[in-house]
């Protein structure tokens, strides 16, 4: 039989939190017994898991949680907490297991704090019934025991002062967030970034929901300044990017995508970026791309373009132009012309490409912007081979963006499709520049 664990999550990006937890559980084969206890309004979830190993695997990469603990007890006040800890069916076994190891106590809280009023030494003393004989060690102790106080905030701006619930447990695994991933990948500290760079937190969450795996190949067909490549590299994938705009992926001087990877100590993960039109793709067909993760252009900061002439008549016969005896289009400095393309068509191409290149059960994840104020239903692109697994919304004032996550189920899946249909009534670009009015 398994054990009870306490998961301490963060109350941000709630539309993504459960998707991240489910995706990581699925990726590492972690059986989570009681999803029915999951509550969006609470940062706490008590779960049954097989063992500590599973708990570690599940939470180590997580971005929208803080940590997971072996659950020892809870109570509305300290006396109730102590009663509950001592009444735990595993109490005697737990006490015995950690009797002689070195340890320390830590304090954490949610929704408020005691503002220094909690006498921590006295609080630790009140646990003397645990009867630990080991040394107290503040650095690298064998075990960390944590007291977590939950406060009810008085309102949005004022923190609570009296805890309404207190948890006690043994630390099993701190999340990637608690171990500093957000600080490490903070855009402010990144050598090369641009107006299209994607923030650290949600790019890492995206990579988790997309189930990017160590040693696999992750491809971003709209790499830009490489934000998602960085996220995929962080989780150990070999990352490959392309972009039709060579200036973006080239960077400037010492500010390059490669330099970003070097700064993070992850040069090995970065394969290459290619100047390439995703719809005229050069990656050989039998190369399996384990994950596709991207933020397609949607016409605000970057236009949507593919190769080809906007006005084919004007370019008729241009292939015969020669410079110094060589075809002009074969010269090193030739710049091909591009034509505008619609977001709908681009996303159709993306889904089709994913269905051809992903392995079975491989994931495609991308971001799509939506204007909020229209009474028009947002139509999510669908492909017969791809199961739409998640549709996570991040709300802004007048628009929102969604992370759409698909799983490749192969031709046998035979799901609904809406390729080739004009899904959007108006383009997001037009709505954006008219102030959504």
């Amino acid at each position, binding site marked *: 039989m398994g054990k009870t664990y306490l998961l301490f999550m963060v109350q941000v990006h709630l539309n993504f939190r459960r998707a991240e937890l489910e995706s990581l559980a699925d990726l590492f084969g972690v059986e989570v017994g009681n999803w029915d206890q999951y509550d969006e309004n609470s940062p706490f979830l008590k779960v049954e898991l097989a063992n500590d190993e599973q708990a570690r695997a599940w939470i180590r990469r997580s971005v929208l949680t803080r940590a997971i603990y072996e659950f020892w007890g809870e109570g509305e006040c300290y006396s109730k907490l102590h009663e509950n800890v001592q009444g735990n069916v595993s109490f005697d076994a737990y006490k015995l297991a950690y009797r002689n190891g070195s340890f320390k106590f830590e304090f954490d809280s949610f929704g408020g704090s005691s503002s220094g009023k909690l006498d921590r030494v006295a609080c630790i003393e009140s646990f003397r019934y645990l009867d630990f004989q080991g040394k107290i060690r503040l650095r690298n102790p064998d075990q960390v025991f944590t007291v977590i106080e939950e406060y009810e905030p008085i309102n949005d701006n004022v923190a609570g002062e009296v805890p309404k619930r207190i948890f006690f447990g043994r630390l099993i695994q701190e999340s990637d967030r608690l171990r500093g991933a957000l600080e490490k990948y903070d855009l402010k500290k990144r050598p090369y970034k641009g107006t299209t760079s994607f923030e650290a937190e949600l790019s890492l969450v995206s990579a988790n929901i997309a189930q990017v795996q160590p*040693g*696999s*190949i992750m491809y971003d067909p709209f790499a830009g300044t490489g934000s998602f490549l960085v996220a995929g590299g962080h989780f150990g994938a*070999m990352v*490959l990017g*392309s972009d*039709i705009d*060579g200036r973006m*992926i*080239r960077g400037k001087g010492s500010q390059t995508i*490669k330099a970003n990877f*070097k700064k993070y100590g992850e*040069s*090995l993960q970065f*394969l*290459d*970026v*290619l*100047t*390439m*039109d995703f719809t*005229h*793709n*050069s*990656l*050989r*067909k039998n*190369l*399996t791309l384990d994950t596709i993760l991207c933020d397609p252009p949607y016409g605000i900061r970057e236009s949507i373009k*593919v*190769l*080809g*002439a906007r006005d*084919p008549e004007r*370019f008729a016969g*241009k*292939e015969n132009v020669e410079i110094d005896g060589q075809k002009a*289009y*074969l010269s*090193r400095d*030739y710049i*091909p*012309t591009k034509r505008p393309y619609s977001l709908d068509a681009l996303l159709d191409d993306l889904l089709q490409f994913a269905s051809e290149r992903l392995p079975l059960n491989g994931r495609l994840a991308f971001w799509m912007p939506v204007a909020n104020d229209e009474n028009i239903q947002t139509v999510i692109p669908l492909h017969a081979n791809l199961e739409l697994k998640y549709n996570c919304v991040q709300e802004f004032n007048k628009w929102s963006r969604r992370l759409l996550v698909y799983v490749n189920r192969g031709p046998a899946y035979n799901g609904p499709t809406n390729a080739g249909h004009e899904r959007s009534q108006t383009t997001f670009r037009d709505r954006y520049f008219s102030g959504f009015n």
Partner: protein
Amino acid sequence: MKFLTTNFLTCSVKECDRSNNSFPLHYKGEACQLEQDEGIEFNPEFLLRVIDRVEWDAVVSVAKDLGNSTLPQQKPVFENEELSEEDMIVLRDLHVLLIQTNIVEGEMTCRNCGHIYYIKNSIPNLLLPPHLA
């Protein structure tokens, strides 16, 4: 562009999809400028996964284009989970070739349609003119 990437790139032209000659591209040796990036650390587990993905014939062919004819005709196999010292020597050599070797400037041609692609500042440009797009 890493040597490894040459193993992933074929011609962008749609008509070349059906040809057996469009992969790998032909690298014009005298036009290619190579560089060794010794800063990239050696990780045997990572490399084993990379080698799984690689089409060995293409590795041999591109290496020859670039002036290295010393590669074995058959893909090296690593049968034992415990890597032997000889295995490590082979893996180190492959690390230098596949991961550390960078084509800074260069030219690559499709053997089927003859289209020429360029590598500039380590980034290959695979864009096509309108009549081929």
